[in-house]
């Protein structure tokens, strides 16, 4: 025999258990609400993180790429598309002397063939260690010394099968470090110095691959992009103009603009998310309030009975609040779990689908967000039930014991 005490808590639990249908209906509303708030929030946070990591990772103020390859360059930076394009290395000499340029370096893009290496083709970026100011400061987080010949640093999404090496064009390269995820194209990129890149090219050519940039010896004369850092940020557009005047067949990209195109679409999404959330909260508050009030209508007699047995109004109020709180917390937990099942395992896919830099928040932020969702959802449930609780205090109908009620 159960000799459990009948506390307000137990009473609330018994009520919820016995009224299964009502409980499930209410829970469903709360769960959908929680799932939307949590899933939408994680999505949004991930986009925001993505933007920040693009900002951090760009490194250069101005990027020069061959004519008509601006969009491809953006895709490499933001989405991890593989592509390659080339221009003459002379470009560096042409712009180097422009006043206000602090540092200048170049990168060479190359792609692994689909089947020869990894499941998917990956972008390979070669850089010049002596002049590079873009890749190395970042790699330093993971690799203290300079990257050695024939070893590679890989982005966060690249699978390193046996833990320490990667096969590209049928040759093994030692993986010196694997970077954290950035949500940008960097995650699907392999970084090497120019010596290594030459070896890769040789191996590829031996296997019969031919490349756009022409013959192997041309490697010394070809580059994909010139990265420029200016000494005074104020001068970026002036320097960009000057480069445009002094060069031909070249696209002058300003990093800030790349970022701002991302942040523009992000702030649009943010506005949409904000309004959707706002409307959703209002709708859920209204729906739950109505649900609770309707349930109160059905519970008039039950409440009168509780009063008859000497339960005070405040205890009955606490019982209703406890029921709402339990439903709120349970619904929040369910909603968070359901949203998590979609949002976390498929984050790479979601990132690709949205086509924006996408970086999942860290575990602390996620935890805070989980707590926030629980508080918001439970709060909504409590606010909604408060109208019903107020009725107990207002109406005498909840106090009499009459036949037929």
């Amino acid at each position, binding site marked *: *025999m*159960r*000799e459990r*005490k*009948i*506390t307000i808590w137990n*009473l609330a639990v*018994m*009520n919820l*258990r*016995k*009224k299964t249908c009502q409980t499930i209906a209410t829970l469903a509303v709360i769960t959908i609400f929680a799932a939307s708030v949590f899933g939408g929030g994680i999505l949004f946070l991930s986009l925001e993180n993505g933007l920040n990591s693009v900002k951090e990772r760009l490194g250069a103020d101005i990027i020069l790429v061959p004519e008509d390859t601006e969009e491809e360059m953006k895709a490499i930076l933001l989405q991890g598309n593989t592509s390659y394009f080339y221009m003459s290395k002379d470009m560096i000499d042409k712009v180097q002397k422009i006043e206000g340029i602090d540092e200048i370096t170049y990168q060479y893009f190359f792609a692994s063939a689909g089947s020869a290496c990894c499941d998917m083709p990956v972008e390979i970026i070669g850089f010049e260690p002596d002049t590079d100011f873009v890749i190395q400061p970042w790699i330093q987080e993971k690799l203290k010394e300079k990257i050695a010949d024939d070893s590679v640093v890989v982005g966060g999404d690249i699978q390193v099968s046996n833990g320490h090496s990667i096969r590209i064009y049928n040759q093994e390269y030692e993986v010196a470090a694997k970077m954290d995820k950035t949500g940008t194209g960097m995650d699907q990129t392999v970084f090497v110095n120019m010596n290594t890149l030459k070896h890769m090219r040789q191996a590829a050519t031996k296997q019969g691959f031919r490349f756009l940039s022409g013959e192997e010896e041309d490697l010394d004369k070809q580059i994909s992009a010139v990265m420029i850092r200016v000494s005074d940020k104020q001068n970026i557009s002036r320097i960009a103009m000057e480069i445009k005047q002094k060069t031909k067949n070249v696209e002058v990209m300003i990093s800030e603009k790349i970022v701002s195109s991302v942040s523009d679409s992000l702030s649009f999404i943010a506005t949409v998310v904000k309004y959707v959330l706002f409307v959703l909260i209002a709708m859920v508050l209204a729906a739950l309030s109505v649900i609770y009030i309707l349930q109160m209508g059905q519970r008039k007699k*039950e409440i*009168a*009975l*509780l*009063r*008859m*047995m*000497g*339960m*005070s*109004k*405040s*205890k009955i109020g606490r019982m209703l609040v406890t029921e709402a709180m339990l439903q709120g917390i349970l619904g929040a937990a369910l909603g968070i779990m359901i949203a998590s099942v979609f949002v976390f395992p498929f984050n790479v896919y979601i990132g690709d689908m949205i086509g924006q830099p996408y970086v999942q928040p860290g575990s602390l932020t996620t935890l805070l967000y989980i707590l926030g969702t629980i508080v918001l959802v439970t709060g909504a449930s409590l606010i909604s039930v408060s109208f019903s609780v107020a009725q107990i205090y207002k109406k*005498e109908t909840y*106090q*009499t*014991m*009459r*036949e*037929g009620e």
Partner: protein
Amino acid sequence: MNLTLKDVGKKYTRNQTDFWALRHVNLSAKTGDFISIVGKSGSGKSTLLNLIAGMISPTEGEVLYDEISYIGAPDKIISKFRNQKIGYVAQGQSLLSNLTVWDNIRFPNQLYDSEKKVSAKELEELMDKLGIRDLKTSYPEQLSGGEMRRVAIARALVNSPDILLADEPTGDLDEENTRIILEIFKELAKKGTIIFMVTHDKETVAYSTSAYAILDGNMTKFVKNIDNME
């Protein structure tokens, strides 16, 4: 305990018009009184019990328990008083449908920490007396009308109240159970409980020590000869 109703009246509002459900009620009851209340449907019998239980407050007049009025007292105090001193067997189905029979019966005893807790054994004895011991783990929806009524009676008695209010307690019971319950009431009254019982049945009235009829004129009247009650 002494209970006194002094010129009590209760006004209700229905369809925007006020009307007196009960007016000029004067009565007093003392320990051991077993009072029957008779009257037509809608004459205010349940209203009277609700007033005595402190569930509603009178529009005029006062209800005194040992000379103390609870009108205007905080809800907490009235509620606790009702829980400890008043047992109420309401009209119709009055069990909590979300609780088992067992939990229903012990519910009033669990509501306040300070209460003297009845033991499982005492509860079982009480259920035995009413013939409902086997129903312990059942839910109200699984019971017959008569069984529900007996559970409600057990629940009203669990805190050994000073006043027992019973609104047609034997309405849906067979002869044997009616007799058993009326005997229990009679015995309780002898031990000092004040009992108010609403009934339509003359034989039932015979068990009580006195009877009141509520007539259409919203008055209460002491009935000496039960046979003239109509």
